[in-house]
């Protein structure tokens, strides 16, 4: 395969993935920091480089609504959004999942209003975590590109048939330029294959089906149960698809990445781009002989429980870094899930939580180093003064 590494922003990289996927329909509405995806892709359409029909809708609510219509009609369908756009879609995001429509949606993570803020945190997608969508989080623009391609196969797998959000960090990876290796168009086409819907579609007029009926006490529960089952299937099916991807494109995507975890004593768990900064800190700590490690889940829905247990059972203490608060008073959303998962583990590390980076507040290597320092202090004294902590906020 020809190696083609070109400088691209994370948004452009995702737009390139969309060009290679060449969905039948894209319905989208601009919102910073996702806008560049839609703009770049619109140019591909305008230049006739893809056969896609674009629907330049008047709102995100209609974007997701049109995606539901399009996907139910049997077209390979995509959209993209951020923050308030995702919030405006919310009602239909649930409906898309309940209809089991394999829509793929890049989400460039941005803080949810209010107050209004355009920079990165994960409050938008964490808010949609129970909507029944699969969620994948990328560390880099390059990985967001790869995830977009991978997501098509995940969404359309007959054992899954669920929509997928492909998340990356607003501005941090969506707007900074990095060298992205673009795969051959043909190789991508081959990997995703021709779309064959797993369900009877609306355009099959000889076999009429009713999408979105009213579902009362007698069936709603069963249908929700089936959605859970699809998520359970997904956690078993995704590794196979990932392996295929890794083989096809010489990659090493993982559901949960473990960095320096073999002999680590203290570990940080963090999603997306902050993991890159944390790896840098782990390297410098390791050079000083500190047994630091890092765990980076790529998947949040379905929740990779077994992977987390396996990774964290190795350490004495772990700090979960959340880029969103849940206002529960008990920590962020990722922390809650990880703490809950670890309840089943035979070997339970001490777990602490740090909320950071809300509204795009920078996090620096020093901040991360301080977290490792806190952990080694706890290991020494056995005392935790605060279970939930905040990094870099004026209090």
């Amino acid at each position, binding site marked *: 395969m020809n190696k083609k590494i070109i400088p691209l922003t994370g948004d452009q990289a995702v737009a390139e993935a969309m060009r290679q996927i060449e969905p039948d329909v894209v319905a989208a509405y601009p919102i910073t920091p996702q806008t560049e995806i839609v703009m770049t892709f619109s140019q591909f359409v305008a230049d006739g480089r893809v056969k896609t029909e674009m*629907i330049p809708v008047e709102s995100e609510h209609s974007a997701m609504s049109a995606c539901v219509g399009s996907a139910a009609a049997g077209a390979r369908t995509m959209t993209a959004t951020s923050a308030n756009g995702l919030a405006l879609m919310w009602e239909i995001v649930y409906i898309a999942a309940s209809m089991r429509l394999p829509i793929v949606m890049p989400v460039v993570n941005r803080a949810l209003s209010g107050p209004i803020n355009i920079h990165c945190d994960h409050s938008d997608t964490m808010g949609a975590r129970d909507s029944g969508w699969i969620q994948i989080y990328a560390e880099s623009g390059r990985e967001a590109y790869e995830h977009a391609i991978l997501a098509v196969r995940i969404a359309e797998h007959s054992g899954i048939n669920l929509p997928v959000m492909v998340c990356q960090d607003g501005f941090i990876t969506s707007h900074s330029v990095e060298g992205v290796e673009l795969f051959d168009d043909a190789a991508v086409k081959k990997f995703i294959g021709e779309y064959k819907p797993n369900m009877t579609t609306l355009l099959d007029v000889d076999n009429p089906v009713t999408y979105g009926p009213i579902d009362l006490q007698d069936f709603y529960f069963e249908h929700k149960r089936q959605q859970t089952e699809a998520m359970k299937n997904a956690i078993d099916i995704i590794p196979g698809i990932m392996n295929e991807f890794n083989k096809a494109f010489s990659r090493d995507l993982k559901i949960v990445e473990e960095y320096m975890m073999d002999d680590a004593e203290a570990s940080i768990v963090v999603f997306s781009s902050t993991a890159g900064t944390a790896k840098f800190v782990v390297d410098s700590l390791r050079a000083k002989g500190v047994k630091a490690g890092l765990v980076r889940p790529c998947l949040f829905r379905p929740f990779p429980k077994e992977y987390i247990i396996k990774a964290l059972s190795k350490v004495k203490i772990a700090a979960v870094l959340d880029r969103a608060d849940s206002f529960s008073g008990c920590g962020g959303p990722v922390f809650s899930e990880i703490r809950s998962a670890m309840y089943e583990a035979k070997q339970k590390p001490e777990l602490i939580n740090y909320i950071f980076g809300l509204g795009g507040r920078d996090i620096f290597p020093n901040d991360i180093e301080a977290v490792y320092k806190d952990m080694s202090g706890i290991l020494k004294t056995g005392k935790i003064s605060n279970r939930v902590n905040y990094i870099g906020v004026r209090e």
Partner: protein
Amino acid sequence: MANIKELSKLPERLGPGHRLCSGCGASIVARQVLLGAGNSALVAGCATGCFEVATTIYPYTAWKVPFIHNAFENAAATMSGVETAYRSLKKQGKIKKDIKFVTFGGDGGTYDIGLQSLSGALERGHNFVYVCYDNGAYMNTGIQRSGATPTGASTTTAPAGKVSSGKPQLRKDLTAIVAAHRIPYVAQCSISNWNDLVTKSQKAFDAKGPAFLNVMALCHRGWRFPQENGVAIAKTAVDTCFWPLYEIENGKKYKINYTPKEKKPITEWLKLQGRFKHLFKPGNEEILKSIQQDVDDEWEYLLKRSAL
């Protein structure tokens, strides 16, 4: 002009066995509109409301054509997606058949919460027919006022009371709002004039681009009349010029399709319905007068527009 013998041979797209109230206007609207599609292959949709919940109670469906309901306010956006998917797949040769698209929405889902989605879809020019079955209130949630509720009607959120005489505001002129999008075809119709309605539906399905039908539908629960009187009440709405029958091509060319020989006073229509009963109590003469004035003004305006 539709011929009733020919129409009777067309396929039933909305089967019996739905659970709308007997005498509900919505199903009459749908059946007459669907006749306008002739034998064409068809995909239908609907906004949340009485019509949707009563025709699709899982695991049953009254729909004999592919059907989609998404949510309350997005029937137009949803059908935009279906129609675009069709265009995309057709262009790629993956679909051979010619298919037409229609979606229904109540007045709530169209005049109010769904107006943005409708406007967007019309502006983008999707090739589908949007049918508003206007029963003048949110019936499915229990007769709440909507932007289509006529002045003076008593609803559960604008009830007549000791100091209130029902909905104080004018109803929204949705037909004009839609026409302002300059789409190929817009028409106002009533189930009482079936031939006019079926003919207009045919035109709507034949239009190249979006078409919109605003159809007076009846709800005896919300309007408070004996269920068998529906069509007669619709006829009175037309004959009082409360609900004129007209069409608009490309947003400009207005044509009145029916002029009553003798325009009846609006009280003829109001007195048939319980929701206006309070207006006939002493002291409300001024309200009745102003309702009549509004109807006259609108009719005059329409006559002028159509003479242009």
